């Protein structure tokens, strides 16, 4: 009897020791460190930038500042929209600064380079603002997590209903780099598969100031819909020019990727009435308003969808670290995919095995001047698109269990 008791005791102690050993090995370097990489001063500064840093800080504070008794730290840097700059910063973060995961991630070209570095080092990429769907399809990786939206959701959300409503003939004004090409090709597929026809496309270099030539070409194509497959200031400039040359009178102009800050930069007379797809809108309900109000108090502007996404995915990551009892990437990513994301941002959400966070997307309309109660009152939500419908199926080769 005594012997059995002794054995039990020993097993107990041993078990206790194993647990504490696991805990000690659980959090590497005695801290969880999150890197925020974004364009801080360029064309995409408003859609992520410092706002993403603020959002991640808020997530860390709301989480309590520590996870499993260890402090959570944040570092941030400006990638200047340059892939080489981005990947060398991230390499330094991993090699010298014990960064566990990187979020922010805006320009698809930068994210492509950075995600490779992160996968090579078995670190998780928390992609908040990039649009390309490559990260969960042809360049998928078990360490990629993409949260807010992607080009497929934009095309399904915006293009499909328009083709369905009898707008058959399309013409694209496309930003001439990876993101624009991806958006154009996905949207073209949606147009074709729904019985529409693409009459042509014109590729405008990133940062074009004068779109009048492209608008003229679009006009002479005779299309029903001119789709703007661009973003940021390219979008505002091209739409402004389209309105000036009377294109908005003779055809529908569809903005395929519009952030709240871009919509705010446009005269409501020009942008009012345009329909678009977004992953988040601050004024949707009590929950979104509560968070957005706190965000605006700190950041000075309403959150863009990627900024809300950055908060949501950081929170989910930290919860997964806590639940897994470790910051080991393989364990955490498994936990992240097991747990259902559920907060003010992620509605009816799951994180699929390919790293795609599938959640409700919103079809919105830009409000006209007389509908706006204040300068932040920009969108009216017209339709909720379910995640499955918006993001499409997962590829078999990206089903990382």
């Amino acid at each position, binding site marked *: 009897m005594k012997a059995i008791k002794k054995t039990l005791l020993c097993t107990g102690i041993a078990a206790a020791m194993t647990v504490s050993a696991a805990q000690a090995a659980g959090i590497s370097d005695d801290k969880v460190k999150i890197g925020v990489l974004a364009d801080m*001063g*360029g*064309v*995409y*500064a*408003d859609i992520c*930038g410092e706002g993403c840093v603020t959002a991640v800080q808020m997530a860390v504070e709301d989480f309590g500042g520590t996870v499993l008794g260890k402090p959570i730290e944040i570092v941030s840097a400006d990638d200047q929209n340059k892939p080489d700059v981005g990947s060398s910063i991230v390499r330094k973060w991993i090699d010298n600064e014990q960064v566990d995961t990187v979020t922010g991630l805006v320009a698809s070209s930068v994210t492509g380079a950075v995600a490779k570095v992160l996968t090579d080092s078995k670190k998780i990429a928390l992609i908040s603002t990039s649009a390309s769907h490559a990260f969960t399809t042809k360049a998928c990786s078990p360490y990629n997590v993409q949260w807010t939206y992607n080009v497929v959701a934009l095309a399904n959300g915006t293009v499909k209903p328009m083709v369905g409503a009898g707008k058959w003939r399309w013409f694209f004004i496309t930003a*001439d780099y990876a993101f624009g090409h991806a958006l154009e090709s996905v949207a073209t597929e949606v147009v074709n598969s729904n019985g529409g026809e693409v009459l042509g496309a*014109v*590729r*405008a*270099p990133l*940062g*074009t*100031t*004068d779109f*009048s*030539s*492209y608008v*003229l*070409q679009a*006009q*002479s194509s005779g299309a029903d819909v001119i789709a703007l497959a661009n973003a*940021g*200031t390219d979008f*505002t*400039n091209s739409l*402004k*020019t389209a309105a*000036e*040359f*009377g294109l908005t009178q003779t055809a529908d102009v569809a903005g395929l990727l519009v*952030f709240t*800050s*871009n919509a*705010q*930069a*446009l*005269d409501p*007379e020009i942008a009012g009435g345009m329909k678009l797809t977004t992953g988040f809108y601050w004024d949707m309900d009590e929950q979104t308003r509560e968070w957005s109000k706190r965000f605006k108090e700190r950041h000075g*502007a309403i959150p863009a969808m990627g900024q809300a996404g950055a908060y949501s995915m950081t929170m989910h990551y930290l919860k997964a670290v806590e639940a897994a009892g470790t910051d080991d990437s393989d364990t955490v990513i498994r936990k992240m995919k097991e747990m259902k994301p559920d907060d003010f941002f992620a509605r009816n959400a799951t994180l699929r095995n390919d790293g795609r966070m599938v959640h409700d997307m919103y079809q919105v309309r830009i409000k006209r001047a007389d509908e706006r109660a204040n300068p932040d009152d920009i969108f009216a939500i017209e339709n909720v698109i379910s995640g499955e419908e918006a993001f499409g199926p997962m590829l078999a080769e990206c089903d990382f269990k």
Partner: protein
Amino acid sequence: MATFLGINLFGLFGQLLVGLINGSFYALLSLGLAIIFGLLKIINFAQGAMYMLGAFAAWMALNYFGINYWAALILVPLAVGFAGVLIERVLLRPIAGEDHLYSLLLTFGIALVLQGLFTQIYGASGQPYSIPDALKGGTKLPFMYLPDYRAWIIVASVVVCGLTWFMIEKTRLGAYLRAGTENPAMLQAFGINVPLIVTLTFGFGVGLAGFAGVMAAPVYSVSPDMGSNMLIVVFAIVVIGGMGSIGGAILTGLGMGIIEGLTKYFYPEASTTVIFAVMVIVLLLKPAGLFGKEA
């Protein structure tokens, strides 16, 4: 539709006209640069920032003080010109005798500071500025719809450039300016206040950029990086036209706008590069530029 050799002529005319509109902006900006370089031998890298400042000043005037477009068209160039006078007096004067590189770096620094400052305060997305009511609407030409405001850009730019050219080439004041370029010490000996002329010229050149900024505000997004996007192209134009040549800057500005417009029609992907390709060719064949005098 009228076609010639398989080219849609209507489309082509449209692009030519649009090119001319862009060329008007190029002409205004490169004229300012050419004047400043001609007299002060300063390569003013802040010219783009002054253009941005002009657009922002118009936006601020409207939103903070209720000053409309037409008043801004007069007041803003004066204000931006005054900023130029301050820059010349306070920052450029002390390094006047140094190598050109110093003033180039200084003005480049000013441009970066201004751009950073405006990005910090107003964000990178840009601010809306409406076309004045009198110039809303447009005219239906056989080959395209010409918005009234775009037509106004061409007219205003040609008038301003023409007046500037006339003032410098044909008036007594212009004669002083040109004399100051040739031999400042001699002109000073005749009792002309050369430092004052230098300051005013810098202010005037910068004011032209401010004017272009106000003109641009309703059609391009008023954003902090609008100047840096434009600056490099405008420098290429000044180099093509011949550094310091007033008439050369105007004609090359308009011409390059048209060439760019044609490129956008035939091969849009090359539209941002074509001006630099022309620059390379011109530098190889005629190093002083199309209208420059051989040193």
